[in-house]
């Protein structure tokens, strides 16, 4: 049976980033890939949202950013539906717009606000509603969640840098430094 595992073992992304299923900002040949597992109702993810935006401004083409769902449904009552709403926007090609609106409005994630955001984004509301009520995207959200569990996600947000779980502080300075370090390494 399993030996005592080494301290500080590496937690790795179990589901590789795929352009077929993931929400990605940036190109496949970017020097560094940052994956975030997040919950729209989690205040720490709200902070991380701002930090990632700043980092994206700094790193531009050198960074590829991927967002995956990790709703903590037991403590965040709106998290599941909100995640499905973002996916519903995604099938109508507006994932990132919706993702941003949600993080900018974390105190207003009830159903009526979700419809308001969908309306603002010009989505087909009938389709959006149908997706939510039929839970068309619940399977996708669950797939994200399980992939996170399998990868050693240990809270929200959890970041993976080039497929390895990032355990340090994700404050702007520390995270940016780590990404820059990796980018520099790849130049050799």
């Amino acid at each position, binding site marked *: *049976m399993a030996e005592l595992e080494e301290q500080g073992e590496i937690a790795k992304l179990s589901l590789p980033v795929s352009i077929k299923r993931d929400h990605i900002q940036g190109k496949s040949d970017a020097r560094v890939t940052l994956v975030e597992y997040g919950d729209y109702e989690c205040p720490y993810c709200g902070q991380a949202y701002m930090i990632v935006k700043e980092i994206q401004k700094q790193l531009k083409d050198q960074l590829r950013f991927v967002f995956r769902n990790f709703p903590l449904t037991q403590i965040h009552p709106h998290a599941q539906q909100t995640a499905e709403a973002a996916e519903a926007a995604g099938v109508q090609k507006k994932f990132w717009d919706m993702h941003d609106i949600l993080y900018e409005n974390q105190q207003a994630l009830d159903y009526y606000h979700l419809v308001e955001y969908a309306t603002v984004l010009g989505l087909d509301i009938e389709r959006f509603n149908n997706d939510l009520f039929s839970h068309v995207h619940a399977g996708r959200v669950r797939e994200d969640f399980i992939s996170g569990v399998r990868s050693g996600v*240990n*809270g929200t947000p959890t970041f993976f840098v080039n497929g390895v779980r990032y355990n340090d502080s994700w404050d702007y300075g520390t995270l940016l430094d780590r990404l820059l370090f990796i980018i520099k390494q790849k130049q050799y």
Partner: protein
Amino acid sequence: MQKSRISSSSASKPSDYVRYAPSTILKAGTPAPDFTLHTTPDQKVSLSEFRDRPTILAFYPADWSPVCGDEMTLFNEILPEFEKFNAAMMGISVDGVWCHLAFSKDRKLRFPLFSDFEPKGEVAMKYGVYRREDGVSERALFVIDKDGIIRWSYVSPIGVNPGAQGILNALESLNSQKEKVGVNKE
């Protein structure tokens, strides 16, 4: 010139408390020490009550860390995955029963929290995971099989939530070994 000698018999004896603290975590193959602790102000539960099911025992330093997805919240979210293996989930820290009660309510936990409060950290010490300098337990995980034998154990750096992957791997291994040679019983 005579050197003065301090008689060793006048030095204080190490207390049982000190002697009883092993420095290393119990490893796979060791029988899991039984214990009986409060899970609520008026209820005590023993580990041995969970014989015949795999058990996950998660030691953690303290309730109320200020993060959304702290370890207990995370395991609470992942509980259905553990239940697929018929595994019983348990958290244990040195916090008192009322603290556990409030924390459990706040995080809507669906598994018991054991209070390793009096004597402080005694169970953590039995498992080799007590941090005497801090007065809390390590962040340590144990997967115990239905015969009461530890099958996997892991200590995470105190500031790093270990996540659930190690536990799930261990539970899967238990399943795949079910049909194989039986365990050496003491």
